[in-house]
Structure formats: structure tokens, C-alpha cells
């Protein structure tokens, strides 16, 4: 057995067990210690990535590691650690302390981490479920908050649909190929195409692409805001790293490009249009996630290393920007009576110049303004699309990103250019939140000016 390739996941599991056992005996007042402990667990996993020899396969070829998915895991662990650091103060201020919260995000990350290395549909299903079930819990664990329960339930129902589609797809896959291993099968038949359709739908649901997006705005809005931050960052990164692998097995199907193009066009235009009528900034960013899912799916429309490298760069940085913006929102939400309604953001710059500026930085990054790193991802996708002569898609991308500028701007206008009407008590930024915000904004700026620090590591 080649245990070496599993070291990061083992570290993670050990950490989870440790926190879990301590949680059994520790009382609520140790909540903070537990949370910080578990925030450090991904850091150890991150360090242990250096011990893994790659590329390698193990566990009857179920589990694969390569340079790319190790990089994905590194990004995932950093994101997890940061979002855990940002959680502590929010739950305390909201009076909703569940000590279980300290390790459930780690379980989700374990699932996502396994997903990235999975080379077999069974392992994919299991890891997806591990991650999803933990996330259902994360969404609904919020004391006396009806919206969070509703969100969790909706997420669970939709997620269950995805699970069943995925299982059915796997069954068809087995029926047509005689194996559950992900490989390139050249002999096409309708059963195989059907299985692709089902599996792709399930994954599109997880990636919140239109028309499988319905859970996203509700789950994002109802979930405790730091959890929304986690939802919008870590799973996306893992999913697209997995998608890039999946692409190598499925791209030869002639329906692939069509399916992806339809999904991505629908997501881009639908979400960017619907975002304009949102009244809640949290929902608005949920639609922004859906629109970004549309952009990202362009990156796997066809096999071309420029496209995939740009995609992985884009999605990693998007995750940091998204986590950062939700953390800002969670800081604001600690104020009494703050509801994320657009009007609550009026005149925010006067009250919190630093928070408002950081939020504006992330929003400008979403629009795709340099020198923020998301711009480089966008440029890379343009170049890839031109290179593969998918010019209509490139044009659609251009139009969608122009369309999107308006609703991000509206938030910026409210924060900077309008006077606040309601007065809220000031919110303090905790150490953990400050750390997360600092690192997210630093990365978004640094990798915008020196993108090769990450870009060169993405070798396909």
C-alpha cells in the first residue's frame, strides 16, 4: 500500500478526530480554543503536502495525486483555515455557539480533498456526499434562525437530487463500460452519453450552474455568513480542479462542448440579469457566484492547456475574493439589526472606511478590473477561447462581464457615494477576521501584479 499519497488527508482526519474527542469532554467555554485548533489542522495538512511523492496512484488506482491536484489541495486547505479563523467571533456575537462547528468544516474539506484525487466514480460519490452532508449541517446550524433551517432543508433536497442523478449516472456508466474507473472510453454509445448527461447535471448542481442553481441564492442567504463564505470558496475550487480532470476523460464526446456552452451561457446571462433585481447584497453575491460558474465552465469547454490553466488560476483567486467579501459581510452582520439589505450598506464608507474599501476592492475584482488577480484569469480565458476559435463564447463572455458591472457598482455607489440613514452600533473586527481579510486582499492584489507566482505552478 502506498500510504504516502494519503498523508494530507490522514493529517486532516487525525486533526478531526482530535478536535472531535476534545469536543466531547470540553465545555462550551473552550469553544474558541477548539476552533483555533481546528483552524490550524489544515495548516498541518498543507505542510504535509510537501511529503507526497507525485505523480502517483494508490489504493487499487482509486486515488490519484498529481502536481495539479496537490496545488488544488493547497488552495483548499488555505481557504478552509482562513474561513475557520473568520468564524469564531461571529458565532459568539450571534450567541450561537455550537462546538461541533469547529470540526464540521474540516470534514467537508476532507471530502473535497478526496474528491480532487478521485479516479473512480464510487470514490467521487462518497467524497461528494461527505462534503455535501457536512455543508448541509453547516448551513442549518444556527440558533433560532428560521431562515437557516429553511436554507439547509432546501440545500439538502436539491443536493439529494444531485446525489441520485450522480448514482444513476454512475450506474449507466458501469453498464456501458463495465467499470467505474474514470478512463477515456472511445466507443460511444447512447448509454454512455446518458451517463455523462446525468453526472454532468449533478456536478453542475454542485457548481450552481443554471438551470441547477435554485438552491444557491437561498442557501447563501440563509446560511450563517461565514459559512456562506466557505460555501462560495472551498467547494468551488475543489469542483473545478475535479472538472479539469474529468475533462480529459469526456472531452471527445461530441455533446460535451454543446452541453458546457449551454450551461455556461445560461448561467452567465440569467444570473447577471437576475442579480439586478436583488435587494439583499448576500443574494446579489450568490447570483454573482452563479454568473462566475458560467465563466468558469467556459474554461472546460474544450481541452486546451491555456484555458484550463486560466480557469484554475481564476477559480482559486475568485475563491479568495469571495471568501473575503463574505467575511466583510459577516463582520457587518455582527451589528445589531444589520440585514444585508442594500440600503443597510448606505454610507458604509463613512463608518468603516477600511472595510468598505476592502469590499470595493473585491467587487472591482469581480468586475475584472486590473490590477486585481481575477483580471488575469479573465484575460487567460479570453486567450484560450480565441486560441480554440470559440469566438462566439468569447463574445458572450465579454457581453456578460459588461452586463455584470452594473450591479457590483450599485453596491459600491451605496457604500461610497451615498449618505447613511440608519445608524448602527460599530462593529469590531476580530483577530481571525482581520487575518482572513488581510490575506485574501493581499493575495488578490499580489497575484494580480505577479500572477506567475501561482500561474507557473499550474502545470497540466
Amino acid at each position: 500500500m502506498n500510504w504516502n499519497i494519503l498523508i494530507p488527508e490522514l493529517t486532516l482526519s487525525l486533526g478531526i478526530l482530535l478536535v472531535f474527542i476534545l469536543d466531547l469532554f470540553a465545555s462550551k467555554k473552550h469553544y474558541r480554543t477548539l476552533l483555533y485548533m481546528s483552524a490550524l489542522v489544515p495548516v498541518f495538512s498543507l505542510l504535509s503536502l510537501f511529503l507526497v511523492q507525485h505523480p502517483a496512484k494508490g489504493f487499487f488506482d482509486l486515488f490519484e495525486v498529481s502536481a495539479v491536484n496537490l496545488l488544488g489541495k493547497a488552495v483548499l486547505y488555505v481557504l478552509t483555515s482562513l474561513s475557520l479563523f473568520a468564524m469564531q467571533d461571529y458565532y459568539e456575537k450571534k450567541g450561537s455557539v455550537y462546538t461541533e462547528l469547529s470540526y464540521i468544516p474540516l470534514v467537508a474539506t476532507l471530502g473535497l480533498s478526496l474528491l480532487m484525487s478521485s479516479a473512480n466514480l464510487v470514490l467521487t460519490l462518497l467524497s461528494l456526499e461527505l462534503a455535501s452532508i457536512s455543508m448541509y449541517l453547516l448551513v442549518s446550524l444556527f440558533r433560532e434562525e428560521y431562515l437557516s433551517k429553511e436554507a439547509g432543508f432546501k440545500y439538502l433536497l436539491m443536493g439529494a437530487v444531485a446525489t441520485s442523478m450522480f448514482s444513476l449516472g454512475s450506474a449507466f456508466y458501469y453498464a456501458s463500460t463495465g467499470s467505474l474507473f474514470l478512463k477515456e472510453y472511445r466507443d460511444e454509445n447512447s448509454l454512455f452519453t446518458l451517463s455523462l448527461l446525468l453526472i454532468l447535471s449533478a456536478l453542475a448542481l454542485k457548481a450552481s450552474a443554471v438551470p441547477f442553481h435554485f438552491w444557491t441564492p437561498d442557501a447563501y442567504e440563509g446560511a450563517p455568513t461565514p459559512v456562506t463564505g466557505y460555501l462560495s470558496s472551498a467547494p468551488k475550487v475543489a469542483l473545478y480542479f475535479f472538472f479539469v480532470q474529468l475533462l480529459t476523460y469526456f472531452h471527445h464526446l461530441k455533446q460535451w462542448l454543446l452541453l458546457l456552452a449551454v450551461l455556461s451561457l445560461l448561467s452567465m446571462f440569467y444570473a447577471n440579469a437576475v442579480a439586478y433585481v436583488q435587494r439583499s447584497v448576500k443574494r446579489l453575491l450568490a447570483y454573482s457566484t452563479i454568473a462566475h460558474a458560467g465563466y468558469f465552465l467556459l474554461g472546460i469547454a474544450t481541452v486546451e492547456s491555456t484555458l484550463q490553466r486560466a480557469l484554475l488560476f481564476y477559480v482559486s483567486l475568485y475563491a479568495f475574493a469571495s471568501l473575503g467579501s463574505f467575511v466583510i459581510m459577516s463582520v457587518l452582520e455582527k451589528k445589531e439589526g444589520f440585514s444585508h439589505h442594500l440600503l443597510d450598506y448606505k454610507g458604509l464608507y463613512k463608518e468603516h472606511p477600511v472595510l468598505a474599501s476592502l469590499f470595493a476592492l473585491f467587487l472591482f475584482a469581480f468586475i475584472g478590473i486590473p490590477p486585481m488577480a481575477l483580471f488575469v484569469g479573465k484575460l487567460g480565458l479570453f486567450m484560450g477561447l480565441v486560441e480554440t476559435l470559440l469566438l462566439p463564447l468569447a463574445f458572450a463572455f465579454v457581453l456578460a462581464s459588461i452586463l455584470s458591472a452594473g450591479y457590483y457598482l450599485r453596491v459600491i455607489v451605496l457604500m461610497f457615494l451615498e449618505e447613511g440613514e440608519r445608524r448602527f452600533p460599530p462593529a469590531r473586527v476580530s483577530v481571525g477576521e482581520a487575518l482572513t481579510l488581510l490575506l485574501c486582499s493581499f493575495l488578490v492584489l499580489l497575484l494580480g501584479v505577479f500572477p506567475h507566482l501561482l500561474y507557473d505552478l499550474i502545470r497540466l
Partner: protein
Amino acid sequence: MELLLNLAIFLPLVGAVAVALVRKEKFAKVVSISLSSLVFFMVLYLFLNFNWQAQGFQYITRLEWIPSLGISYHVGVDGMAISLLLMTALVFVSAFLWSWKVEDRPNLYFALFLLLETACLGVFSALDFFLFYLFWEGMLIPMYFIIGLWGHDRKVYAANKFFVYTFFGSVFLLLGLASIVVYGYMMTGKLSFDYTFHLGFSYPLMLQIAGFLLFGLGFAVKIPMWPVHTWLPDAHVEAPTAGSVILAAVLLKMGTFGFVRYSLPLFPEASKHFIPLIFFLSVVAIIYAAMMAIAQTHIKRLIAYSSISHMGVVTLGTFAMDLNALNGAIYMMVAHGLSSGALFMSAGFIYDRVHSYHMEDLGGLARYVPKLAVLFMLSGLAGIGFPGLAGFVAEFLVFLGTYKNFPLWAFVAGVGVVLSAVYFLYMYKRVMFEEETLSEYRLEKWKHLKDLETHHTLSFLLLIVLAFLMGLYPYPFVKILEQTSKYVLGG
């Protein structure tokens, strides 16, 4: 020398950080004015040492930046760029002097303007597509906040319109950049964003046309050409005075600069192909905008339309495929920067004193603010192309060159340019003279009207002196511009 260019680009950025961190009003003002003057003298030194007989770019710095994507930090200037840099640096000094009395959040104000200065200087000196785009978009956020925070009543609407329009253009520009970079990569196997690398290619016609349209859309919005000009009157009307000055003097030039620097040399055949379209749009802009200007009673809006009209002359000259016309077009960029800057200052001053931009509230001002009356007249004359001032040389060269190849177009455009005298003199008459419209109430109120203060006079003089210099002794300027025109027209 090379270092001097880099210093000139990034000193304002350093200043912006310092001004934003040290929250002292006096500090912000002194630092901004002294830094921008320092930058001006650096650029002036470079300008005076510019070798107009040598070919190609000068003061080149090239550093590896993002090697795996073929992006380098590559800056340098040619004759057009150094002239525009000089104009930009001067206009910024002038704008900072003008803002001496700003009281509303002065630190943020000056920090944003300094940021803007780095972006503007960067656009004109970048020789790498990525770097160019970085500066090009870098000007968007500061300008957005300048309009949005210090503007007049409908500032939010104007700022958003400005942002969305400009962003609309620049995303297409980005797609265009990506296309030609990818083409270069597929042809040579070398990924490079370097401008000089791409200069050597001759692209297939289809790509040239696509590239021309994509780049052109980005530039056309910025210039702005008819029919994507509608953001400009709003942005100008709502922007604070110094914002309008920079917008008119520098930002509009980025578009025309882009046509000369990128569209013409990279897509020569497509450019020839699109001459009728560009001419049509230019002539429409010249005449339509001039007529719109005549119809205005809001003086700032009038000046804004006059800018659109003058930029039509620039695009006309740019695509006339003639050395004189191109010289004239570039000359016009600089000349218009000086005159429109001064005109917007006049309008801004009137607003500061009388609190209105509307002609019906203004008649008879000349007696109360005589200094302004003189300088306003001079700025206007520079704008409408009065002999002895910079605008005349520019218009003369443009029409001389255009007439040679396209006499009919030159004639129609020339008729349009006559209208500029109509709207300016009409405005001047209604604002400065027409004493009979003065009411008792206004007489009482204007008795103590204060004329130009020292910092106002200084910022006017900076621009007008250069306008005179360029009008009376154009030879050295034309020679320097010609260095660019020659290589752009291929020989």
C-alpha cells in the same frame, strides 16, 4: 534618462500613498503640487533631450515581469508619447494648483488625482499590451470616485454612466489584445505581449479587421466618437472642475493616442479599409456635436460638446493617411488638451463664484471678473483655432493633409469647424457681455465678486503660455511629432 521616465510615472503613485496615509490637508496639497511640478520638469527634461531624428522608441526600460506569459515591464516614448506626456504633466500641475482651496476630504481627493496621474502617464509610455491595459483601466477607478464623490447633483448617475461606457469599450479592447497575442503565439510559438514584437507582424486581413473593430470600439468610447459619446456631456457636467480638466485634457486623448499607436501600425490594411466609416463618424461628430453645442445653455455641457467636435477633427486627421494630417491630429491632441483644460477652468471658476452654469444667470460678468474675461477669451480662441494659438496650427495641418487625398470630406469637416467659432462666441457673449440682462438683485450680489486668485491665474497661465508657444513657434513640436507620424505611415 531611462530612470527619469520611470520615476516620472511612479512618483505620483508614491505620493498618492503618502497623501492617503498622512491625513494632513496642507501636506496633501503641498506634496501634490510639488510632486507634479517635479514630474513636469522631469518630462520637460526628457522632452528637450528627445532626439527627433532618431527612429523608434527612446528612453526604453525593459524588465522581465511575468516571463511565463511573455509579459514584460516595457516603457519608452516616441515623439507623440513625449508630447502627450508633457501636456499631461502640465495639465496635472495646473489641476493641482486649481484645487488649492478644496475643503471636502482633501486627502482622498489629492490621492485619487495622483493615482490618476500615474495611470495617465503610464498609458502613454507603456510598450507592453498588458502594462498598457493595466494603466488604461487603472484610470477608471480614481476617475469614477472623483466624479462620484466631488461631483454636482447627478454625480452618481454620471459616474456610473462613465464607468459602464468605458468598461464596455475596454472589455472589447481586452478581447482584441488577447486575439492578437494568441495569433502571435500560434504563428511563432512565442507568447509575447510586447508591442514592438507585434509591430513586425503583418496579420491576415480578417484578423486585422477583427482587431481593428475590437480595439477601435475600446478607443472610440474613450475619445468619444459619435454615437458612443453620450457619457461625456454627463460626466463633464457633473464632475468637479479639476476632474473635468483632466477628463477633457488627458483621458480623451487616450483614445486617439490608441488609434495612432495601436490601430494604424498594427492593422494598416484594415485601417485603409475603414477610412470611409471613420470619416463618416468623424464628420458627423464635428458637425452634430457643434450643433448640439450651439443649442446648449449650460456652459459646461457646451464645452463638453465642443470637445466631441474637436476630437472628430483628430480622428479625421488620424485616418487621412497623410503626414501633415497625422501631424496635425497629434498636434490637435496636445492643443485641445491645453484649450479645453483652460475652458473647463473658466466654467469651474464661474460656478465657484456665481453658483450657476446656466447662461441666463450669467450675463454681464465681464465687468466684475475682468481677469477671467481675458483668460476665458484666450482659452476659447485657442480652442476654436485662432491664428497665433496652438489650435490653429493643428487644424491647419489636419485640413491641409486631408484636403490632399479627400477634398470633399475636408470641405464638409471644414464647414463644421466654422461652427466652433459660432458656439464659443455666442457663449462668450451671453456669459460675459449682455449687461442689459443684469437684474437689480444680481447687481447687488455681484458687487463684491472676487476675481481670479493667484492660484487660479497660475493654473491658467501654465496652459495658455504653452498654447501661445505652440501657436507661434510650432516647428520644434511638429518635428518631434513627425518622428511618430513617419513610422506610423510606414516610411
